[in-house]
Every structure is written in C-alpha cells, then in structure tokens.
C-alpha cells in the first residue's frame, strides 16, 4: 500500500523561532540570556530555567524538573525535539517541533536526561509560553508545620493550575514557602488576595510579596530526589539539617538538594543519596546527581541496554 523509499539522510532540525506555535530551536549550549534576546519582541518565555547563567544542556543534566514544573510539567514535556549526536558522531533528529506526537517509540524522553551515556544534545526544540507581563513572587514565613499546612490550600483546589511554582524551602535562614505566579498585571490582585487569605487563615504564618531585591536563581541542585508530592515535603525537612539548602517542588514530588561546595562534594552527595535510595525506589522514584555516575544497571537491564547501544553505535 503506502510505501516510500527511505530518506537519503536524516531530517535534522534547523534553528527557528515559530512565534505562532510558540516553539524555538536553538543550540544546547544556549543560556537564558540567549533565549531572552530571541523572545523579547514576541511576548514569549521559557519558564523552566534553574540557573539562567548555565547552558540549557547543563540544566537537563542537573534535574528533570524546575520550580515552574508545578504549572508546566517537567523539562521533557517542554522539549519536544532535539538534534542528538550519537556516540558514532552521527547526528540524528529525535522528537518533533510540534508538541503533540505519538509517532514511534519515545526516544526523546528516554535520552533527554541520560547525561552522555547515549551521546549528547546538539540543539533543542523548546516549547514556549505566553509572556503575560507580570511575575509575582510571594513567601509565606512561619514554623515548618504551619507552612506545610498551607500547601493543601494552594494545591488542593482549582487555583493550583495557575501557580508557576509552590516550593517549600529550607536553608540556613530558616524555612519558607515560596509561591510564584506569572499573570496578566490586572489579574495580580486576585492572586495576591488568595494568597493573603491563606496566610490569614493559618495561625503563625505571615506573607511577603515581591521583595525589593529580586530572588537569586536557585542554581543547579547537587542532588535531585524524586518521590511522591506528600513525601517530598517531609523529606525536604528531614534533610534540611544536613544540607545547605533543600527545596521541595511540592506538586511534582521533587527535592532539590544543594550542598556546601568542597572537594568531598561527590562523596557527601552519594552518602545522602544512599540514605534515601531504598525508599525512593520502593515508590517508583529515584535519585540523580550530575556529580555522580548513574547507578549500575541490573543484569536484565544490561541486556536491554546493550541492544540499544548496538543501534546507537551504528551496528
């Protein structure tokens, strides 16, 4: 019936900006500044940066989620396509420039966060979102148990869809609950009112909004723990005394752990990961650190990987 001769070459992405679809293709080495320069005239934005100074591919290597994943999902739901260099040096296209696809097996989500095990990214196609013109950053302050009590009020109803991020942050200055919303300026009072009502209704909690000094970026986490949303909130608190900063991305069930720099950083990271690995795995979660190699595969998994590797190496 419908048959076609194989294409003579791979169909690669070329760099583009499609302001109608809200997609852009740019090098994996691009930073937030590069992207902002491109997007500024088009009222579009990419909300998932962890560290605006770092190239996109470093962010993919560091975590599968960013704070704004609360509203927009993990990186893999916001990067529909890539040009990917195979270990053989050959570059192939993985994924699409359109967001919705079910054409073939999903190599994109399989390799996006695989580090350099199966090659490396050359270019990303990124899904953009409308720039609404106003970002409101608020912080709830108070004892950790009171802040935790605010979380279901933020996430357990229809308002949840509109928070860019809801992060419980423990650091050396204490604990706070950070809520970011990106909205049209005239809608900001609605969000402020809602947040104020939650604070007012929760004893011992105060609220501050859009402090004069803008937030420093979170930076790339040293260790990422993936678990269920409810467990991430408690886990971030349990780890707090042993780390310099822990952020629970409350809806996504992710804990971003930041440690003090030092020559023994990989060892400290590994020790923390090992301490929680069993419980994470039990729930279908995992841990990941860009300082450490991936966990060794089991015998069963090795047999599947070796078949994929043969294909990746061109045999």
């Amino acid at each position: 019936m419908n048959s076609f001769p194989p294409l003579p070459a791979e169909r690669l992405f070329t760099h583009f900006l499609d302001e109608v679809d809200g997609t852009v293709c740019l090098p994996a080495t691009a930073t937030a500044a590069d992207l902002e320069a491109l997007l500024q005239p088009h009222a579009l934005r990419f909300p998932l940066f962890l560290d605006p100074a770092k190239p996109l591919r470093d962010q993919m290597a560091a975590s599968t989620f960013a704070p704004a994943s609360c509203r927009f999902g993990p990186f893999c739901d916001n990067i529909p396509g890539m040009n990917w260099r195979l270990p053989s040096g050959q570059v192939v296209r993985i994924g699409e420039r359109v967001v919705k696809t079910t054409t073939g097996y999903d190599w994109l989500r399989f390799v996006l966060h695989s580090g350099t095990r199966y090659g490396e990214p050359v270019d990303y196609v990124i899904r953009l979102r409308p720039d609404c013109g106003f970002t409101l950053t608020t912080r709830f302050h108070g004892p950790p148990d009171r802040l935790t009590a605010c979380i279901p009020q933020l996430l357990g109803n229809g308002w949840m869809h509109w928070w860019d991020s809801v992060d419980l942050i423990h650091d050396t200055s204490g604990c706070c609950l950070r809520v970011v919303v990106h909205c049209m300026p005239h809608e900001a009072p609605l969000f402020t009112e809602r947040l104020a009502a939650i604070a007012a209704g929760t004893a011992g909690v105060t609220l501050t909004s859009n402090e004069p000094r803008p937030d420093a970026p979170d930076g790339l986490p040293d260790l990422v723990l993936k678990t269920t949303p409810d467990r991430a909130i408690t886990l971030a608190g349990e780890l707090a005394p042993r780390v310099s900063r822990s952020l629970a991305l409350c809806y996504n069930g992710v804990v971003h752990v930041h440690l003090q720099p030092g020559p023994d950083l990989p060892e400290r990271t590994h020790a923390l990961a090992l301490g929680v690995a069993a419980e994470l795995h039990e729930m279908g979660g995992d841990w990941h650190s860009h300082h450490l190699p991936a966990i060794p595969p089991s015998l069963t998994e090795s047999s599947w990987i070796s078949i994929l590797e043969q294909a990746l190496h061109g045999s």
Partner: protein
Amino acid sequence: MNDLDVRLRALLPRGRVLTSPAQLAAYGADGLGYKNYRPDAVVLPADAAELAAFMRGAKRLAVPLVMRGAGTSLSGGPVAAQGGVIVHTSALKAVPVINAHGFWCEVESGVTLNDLDAILKPHGVFYPPDPSSGPVCTLGGNVASNAGGAHCFRYGVTSNYVLGVEAVLLDGSVHRFGGPAGGRGPWREDWKRFMIGSEGTLAAFTRFWLRLLPLPEKVWTFRATYPDLTTTEAAIHALVADPSYPAAIEMLDPRGVAMVESSQMACGLPEGSFLLLVEIDGPAPLVDGRVPHVAELLRRAGSTDVTFSEEALIRQKLWKARKAAGGLLGQLSPSYVVQDAVIPKRALAEVLRLVYDEADAAGIRVVNVFHAGDGNLHPNFLFDSRVPGELEKVERISKHLMERVIAVGGTLSGEHGIGNDKSGYMPLVFGPDSMRLQLAVPAAFNPTHQMNPLKVFDDRRFGS
C-alpha cells in the same frame, strides 16, 4: 477443537478462551472499521495475575499476540493483522488506590476512562486526557497509543500523566517501570518512556500509576463561527498565544457543521460556517474575569457570532455535538477513515486546503473535526470500501496529506498511534540512523515480533 484451542485452554480456564467464528467476529476490526483480520482465538484473563500467568506460557504458543482493550483504536492497532491470539484485557477493572492528597492513583489496564473519571470526581481530582471514546476506551489502550483528546491543548496527553507502568514481557517476567513517584524506580534508565505509546508491541500492561490534578472550579465554553478558513486560522493563532490559556480549542468545518445540524445534535450553527469551540477554566474570580477578553478576541478575528456559557446543559450540548462526530460519520457512510496528523499551526489553512482540493477532485467526501489548538488534524474521509477504487483514492489522498504534513514540519500521529494504517509512512519521518534506533526498541523487548506484529513498522513480522 484445534491444537491452539487445546493449548490455550491449558493456560486459561475454559470460559475465558473464545474460538467460535461468531465470538471472533467482534474482534476482527478496531475503530478503523474497514480492515478486518479475524484472530485465531481470543482470551480474556480474569485479572492481572491470570494475565501474567498466561504470558508466561504464551511464548510457547508460537503465534502472534495482540493486546486489546475496547478496540476503539483508529489506526488498526489492536487487530490480528498476522492472525494469532487477541488478549482482551477488559476484566482488569480494579482501581486499588486513589491518593488525592498525593495526586496519584493506581488503576488496572482494563478500566475505562469515564469510569475512572466518575471514581475520581468525589475526591476532587481528575485525570485530564479525554479522547472522544471515553465512555468505552480503556486505560490500557490509552497508554498504548498515548491518547490525547480535546483538552490536551493545555493539559497535555497521556504521556504527561503516566507515573508508572506494570508490564509483563514475553518471557513472563513482570516489571514495574516507575510507580506512584513517577521516577525510574530501581532502574538506571526510564523504561516506561518506551512503554507509553508502544502500541502493544513491547509488553502486556496490567496496571498503571497515573498523575492527577485538582478539578477546575469553573468552566466557560465559547462558540464562535467564522465565514472562512482564513479568519478561523487567525482566531486559532490568537487563542494559542493568549495569556488566558484556553484548555481546549476545537474546530468543525462547514461539512462537520452541516452533519451536526442535520442530526439530533443540532445546536443552531449557521450553515456554511467554520465553528470554533473554546473552553477556559479556573477559579471563578479568575476565569469569570477572562470571559469578556476571550469573547473580544474571537470577535476581533472575524466572528460576528460569538456566544458563551457556564451552564452545564448548554456546554454539554456543544460538546456532545463535537464528540459525537465520529458516530455521525458512521451513519453517513459505509466506511470512513479518520486521519491523524499534527502540523505547525501556521500551516493549518494550507494543509486543510490540500485536503479539500484532493478529496473534491477524487469525489471523496471529507469532514474536518479536530484539535485546532494542537494543530492536530483529523480529516475524516467518507467512502464505500465495497466500491472498487474508493479505498485506493482515500489512500492516495492520505499519502499526499502525510507528505505535506512532513514537509511543513509536522508528524504522522498526534494521538491515534501508527498501527498498521500508517506504518507505511514511517520512512517519511525516520532516516536510516533514527530508524535503526526505533527498531532497536522492539529488538530489546520483543525481538521475534510476537507481540502485535505488522504494527508501527511494516517489517515487524512474526516468524520471519
């Protein structure tokens, strides 16, 4: 009783093996309809344990195995294209865990989508993918084909919501890829990514862990009609870029409008108009404030007929008309093909014109009812497969459509999957190196292609 019959009855209790022609007739086709492949047998495992036990012996049967939920696929997916045994998973209906506080649930693969919705609703949460076949389609089929639906524009498709998959491989081993936490689990790699959208070619699915969202508090549905494709496209472009973030942007062309208006679903749509059905949702104070803005946007694009409502009855009537389109098509024509392709939205009018021109020239009726916000086209070609040459005409138009879709930067399927309907087009998408990567996936999990042969890729034949 033939040899296969005897061997199947050794693996499963007697009542759960179907082999009579009358019983098998119901399993010859999926929603694609006009292609029929009678299986040699159908088995109905009673639960996940029985399915796993069956799979442990199934390899030795040495016949193709095809997993099937409700059979509502529109791409020729869950059919026995190379004969063999269909494994019907409809009895796997348990929903063992709903953790509304943690935003996840555990469901078996035979649970229907609307049943899950009804079970979740009292907990204040929902599972967003919403294909039109919701009343009957199963989660197993949804995961296998990475199903979408009308509200994917904002909420995303199945792959955005699957946290974990329990899969039984051909050697009978049962594996949990991910789980409630949605990570890799104890594996080095995230294997569930290959399982989702694999169209039954890798493993049998027994249960899933799914991510949930809180129910939106309030919904407004807009109806806007347009005189032509150009103004309709302008409205779509404006909506997708708008900060009101519509949940759904659906389109019916004038032929779809005429079909609805001549049915019991009639809702007063002007003759010859293009219809946009748009939905926004959110907390009442927020979403109520957005209503005038969205209405003005729809008018500014060229509509003089914009109405909107929060009333459940009015909204349901509009959605019923939209979602019943497939059934109405079936009444208009002995056979029809629903194509499924996704294109960059700047090419919407261009590609739709190609569809109209080619179909009109070939004397084939075509109706377009689709997910405009996603650029996810669904041209419905109406024909009679009993008339010599009609199917060939439809296949020729489909081929030209897919060539244009790929040329403008689109892809072959947004939510129906490839099945055996579009497997011949795969070389349009994958070059030699990426094709090698694609074929490595079944080589790892199903190297003999015993599971669902002749699907996704033409040369996946069992026993070759």
